[in-house]
C-alpha cells in the first residue's frame, strides 16, 4: 500500500512541480504574484482539447500549437496587464489583485465557451504497467518522464547558458540588468512564455489523466504556490523539490486522514512553513525587510 501511495504522490508531485517551476520563473525574476498562472493552466488544457479532440489535429501538432499559443498569451498578459503597472511603480499588492481579476476573466470566458461540465479528452481504459508491485497507468508514466526531461532541460538552461545566468541575475537585482545592457523586457517575455508553457504542459498531461473543468486551474495554482514556498522562494530548484514533497505529503494525508481534508492539509503545511521556515527548505535565512521586498 505505502509504495503505491508514494508512487501516486510522486506523479502528482511532478505535475505540481511543473506548475510551481513556471510560477517560480515568473515570481523569482519579476516579483509578480502571477495568480492568473492558474487560468493559463486551464487555458492550456482547453486549447489542447480544442485542437486535438474537437478539430482532430494530430496529437503532436496539437501539443505544439497549444504551447505556441500559450507562450504568446503569457507574453500578452504581461504586456497588457502587468507591465503598465510596473511602469507606474505599483505595489506588489496591486499585482496580486489585478492578477486575481485576470484569473476571473479568463476562467469565465472558458466556462462561457465550453460549459462547466468535466471534459475528458482521453476516454477508455488506459494500459497499466507494474513495477515490483506498483501499478502505474501509461499516462502517469508519461507525466513522470515528461517531468524528468523538462526539468533536466530547464536546469541545463538555468545553470549552463547565458540566459540562465541572466535570469538568476535578474532574481538577485532586477535593476542591474538594464545597467548591464540587457533588455529587461526581453527577459520578461522569456519568463512569461516559458513559465506559461510549463503550466500548459502540466495541464495537458493532467487533463489526459483525470479530465478537466474550467476550475482546475485554481487548485493547480494554489498547490504550485504552496510548493514554491515550501521549496524556497527565489530558488528554482526549490519549486521542484516543493512540488514533489507536496504531492507525496498529500498522498500520505489522504491515506491517513481522508481525501476531503486535502485542501486544509495543504494550507496547514503552507501556514506552518510561513511561520516557522518562511525561507523554505532550500532557502537561506534573510532579514524580514529583504524577504518582503
Amino acid at each position, binding site marked *: 500500500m505505502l509504495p503505491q501511495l508514494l508512487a501516486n504522490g510522486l506523479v502528482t508531485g511532478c505535475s505540481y512541480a511543473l506548475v510551481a517551476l513556471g510560477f517560480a520563473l515568473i515570481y523569482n525574476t519579476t516579483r509578480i*504574484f502571477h495568480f492568473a498562472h492558474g487560468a493559463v493552466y486551464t487555458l492550456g488544457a482547453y486549447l489542447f482539447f480544442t485542437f486535438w479532440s474537437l478539430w482532430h489535429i494530430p496529437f503532436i501538432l496539437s501539443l505544439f500549437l497549444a504551447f505556441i499559443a500559450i507562450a504568446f498569451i503569457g507574453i500578452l498578459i504581461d504586456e497588457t*496587464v502587468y507591465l*503598465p*503597472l510596473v511602469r*507606474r511603480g*505599483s*505595489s*506588489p*499588492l*496591486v499585482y*496580486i*489583485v*489585478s492578477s*486575481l*481579476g*485576470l*484569473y*476571473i*476573466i479568463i*476562467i*469565465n*470566458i472558458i*466556462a*462561457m465557451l465550453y460549459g462547466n461540465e468535466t471534459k475528458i479528452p482521453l476516454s477508455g481504459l488506459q494500459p497499466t504497467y507494474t513495477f515490483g508491485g506498483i501499478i502505474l497507468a501509461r499516462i502517469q508514466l508519461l507525466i513522470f518522464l515528461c517531468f524528468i526531461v523538462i526539468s533536466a532541460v530547464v536546469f541545463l538552461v538555468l545553470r549552463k547558458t547565458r540566459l540562465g545566468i541572466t535570469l538568476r541575475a535578474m532574481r538577485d537585482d532586477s535593476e542591474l540588468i538594464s545597467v548591464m545592457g540587457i533588455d529587461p523586457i526581453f527577459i520578461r517575455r522569456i519568463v512569461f512564455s516559458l513559465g506559461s508553457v510549463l503550466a500548459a504542459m502540466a495541464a495537458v498531461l493532467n487533463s489526459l489523466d483525470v479530465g478537466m473543468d474550467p476550475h482546475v486551474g485554481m487548485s493547480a495554482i*494554489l498547490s504550485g*504556490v504552496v510548493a514554491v*514556498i515550501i521549496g524556497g522562494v527565489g530558488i528554482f530548484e526549490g519549486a521542484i523539490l516543493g512540488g514533489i514533497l507536496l504531492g507525496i505529503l498529500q498522498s500520505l494525508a489522504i491515506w491517513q486522514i481522508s481525501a*476531503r*481534508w486535502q*485542501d*486544509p492539509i495543504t*494550507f*496547514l503545511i*503552507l*501556514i506552518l512553513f*510561513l*511561520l516557522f521556515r*518562511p525561507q523554505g527548505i532550500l532557502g537561506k535565512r534573510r532579514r*524580514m525587510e529583504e*524577504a*518582503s*521586498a
Partner: protein
Amino acid sequence: MNYLLHIFIMINIYSILALSLNLLVGYAGLLSISHAAFYGIGAYIGTLSIMNLGIPFLPSVLLAVVGSVLLSFIISIPSLRLKGDYFVLGSIGFQIIAFSILYNWVGLTRGPYGIPGIPRPSFFGLTIDSIPAFFIFSLLTAVLCAVLIYIITYSPFGRLLKAIREDETAAEALGKNVTRCKITAFALAAGFAAISGVLFAGYMRYIDPTSFTMMESVYILSIIIIGGTGNLSGPITGAVLMIFLPEILRFLQIPDSIAANMRQIIYGLLLIVILRYWPQGLLGDHKLK
C-alpha cells in the same frame, strides 16, 4: 417592487461587509482575502445557535460576533508576522481551511446539503416576516454598523490605524503597539462580518458553504477596491455599484446561461481597469500599497 427591495437588502448586507473589510485594507493596510470566512462563520454560528441550541435571535447574533472575533485571533496573531505577498497568501490559506471545515464537518454544518428553514429574525415580540420589513431591518442594521465604524475610524484608534498604514516604523517609534492595533482591527472586521452573516442567513433562510468561498472573499475585496478605501463613502459606493451593475445585464436580454459568467467577467475587468487608472478607487483617499 420586491425585486428592487431584494437588491437594496443585498446592498445593505454587502455594505457592512465592505465597510468592515475597509477597516483592514483601507485603515490598517492589511490586504486580507479571508473576509468571506468570517462572514460564513458568523452565518453558521448564528444559525446553529438559533436552530440547534434554541437561543433567541439577538443573543445568537452576539454569539456569532464573539465566535467570529475569537477565531480572528487564531488567524491574526500568527499571520501578522507575515508581510506583503505572504500575508495575502496566509489569509487565502485561512479562507480555504475555513471553507473546508464548513464543507466537510457534515455532522455539525450539514456540509454541502446546507441548512434550510432558518427562522426569520425575531426579537422583542417582533418578527421580520416580509421583504419590506426585512429591508427596513437590514437598513437599520447597516446604518448602525456604519455609525459604529464611523466612530471607530474617527477615534484616536482610527487615526492610529491610518498612521500605521502610512508608516509602521514611525508609529512604533512613537511608542504605539502596532501589533495589538492590527489584531484589534482584525477582530473588529471579523465581528462586523459576522453580523452581516447572520443577516444574510436570516434573509435567505438557507445557507450552504458555497456562499463563503475564496472567490466570495475576492468579490468583497473588489467592492472596496473599486469603490475606494480609507473612508466610508468608497466602500458603500462600491457595494451599490457592484450589486446594481450586474442587474443591468438582466435588462439587456442576456440569456441566463451566460449571464453569471458575464457578470464575473465585468467585475474582473473593472478590477483591472480601476487598479490601472484609478488606483485609489472611485471615491477612496488611499492607494493600495
